[in-house]
């Protein structure tokens, strides 16, 4: 089962996703796509690790090429987040691959086949009124396409607002 969680910064996506995972079958894997860079990034990672503590997650860091990831067991996986994964595929020295949309979607598909429940966190990057230079504009378009395809593929899609899940497709599980 694939569950997609979207919403802006600080809307409670991570907390909700983790709470949801803890009610789904073990083993539980947390797949971190955010590279540990800079003080703020490290702080964020530390905060997320603290939030997951005691919830029985095994953390797997994976910044690009999700397709080749092999999970040690079959259970529940939380992938956080598509925005970082897409940015890594597009701008990272390890990334900069052709067709990031396909690579990210294939990666989610491959991961989904290995777990009973996959929760994927993404972000709503297209909702501001600014004009960006071509690199960022291409990123926004790629992420928009990915989000649309993931939502089509997902059994349940929730938009988080103020920590409240709004059902955009499917139903609430708990």
């Amino acid at each position, binding site marked *: 089962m694939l569950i997609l969680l979207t*919403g*802006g*910064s*600080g*809307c*409670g996506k991570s907390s909700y996703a983790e709470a949801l995972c803890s009610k789904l079958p073990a083993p539980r894997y947390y797949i971190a796509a955010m590279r540990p860079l800079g003080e*703020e990034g490290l702080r964020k990672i530390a905060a997320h690790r603290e939030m997951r503590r005691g919830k029985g997650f095994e953390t797997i860091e994976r910044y690009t090429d999700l397709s080749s990831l092999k999970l040690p067991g079959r259970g529940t996986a939380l992938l956080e987040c598509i*925005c970082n994964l897409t940015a890594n595929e597009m701008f990272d020295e390890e990334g900069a691959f052709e067709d990031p949309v396909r690579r990210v979607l294939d990666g989610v598909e491959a991961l989904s086949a290995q777990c009973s429940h996959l929760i994927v966190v993404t*972000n*709503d*990057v*297209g*909702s*501001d*009124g*600014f004009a*960006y230079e071509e690199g*960022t504009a291409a*990123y*926004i378009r790629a992420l928009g396409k990915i989000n649309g395809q993931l939502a089509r593929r997902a059994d349940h899609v929730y938009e988080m*607002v*103020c*920590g*409240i899940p*709004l059902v955009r497709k499917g139903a609430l599980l708990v």
Partner: protein
Amino acid sequence: MILVVGGQGAGKRTFARSLGYEDGEMADACLNDLPVIFHVERMVFACPENAEALYEALLTKKVVICNEVGSGVIPTDQEERLGREAVGRLCIRLAQQADAVVRMVCGIPSVIKGSLPETAEEECL
């Protein structure tokens, strides 16, 4: 307390008027005795470290109006980035305590938590 969120120009204050509050009862990004406050996001951006004190004070309001600022490309400017997060986190905490949370889209209110007082519902219809 009723928390009203939505994008800029989504109809949040119009909605507050439908609850029976007049413009003179709405404070623009400042803490005073008025029952309604709007542009809470500006207060957070101005001073993110005051979010805690702000939270306590906002709980005493009848209606708290805040712009949703977390969407769009994550800003490269650190202050802006942390400000957006702080606004989001404050709204999560306010929503937990609120009797009702209303999300405005194109002037249309959706009650996403709790329910509105009965008189307000009649006026909205």
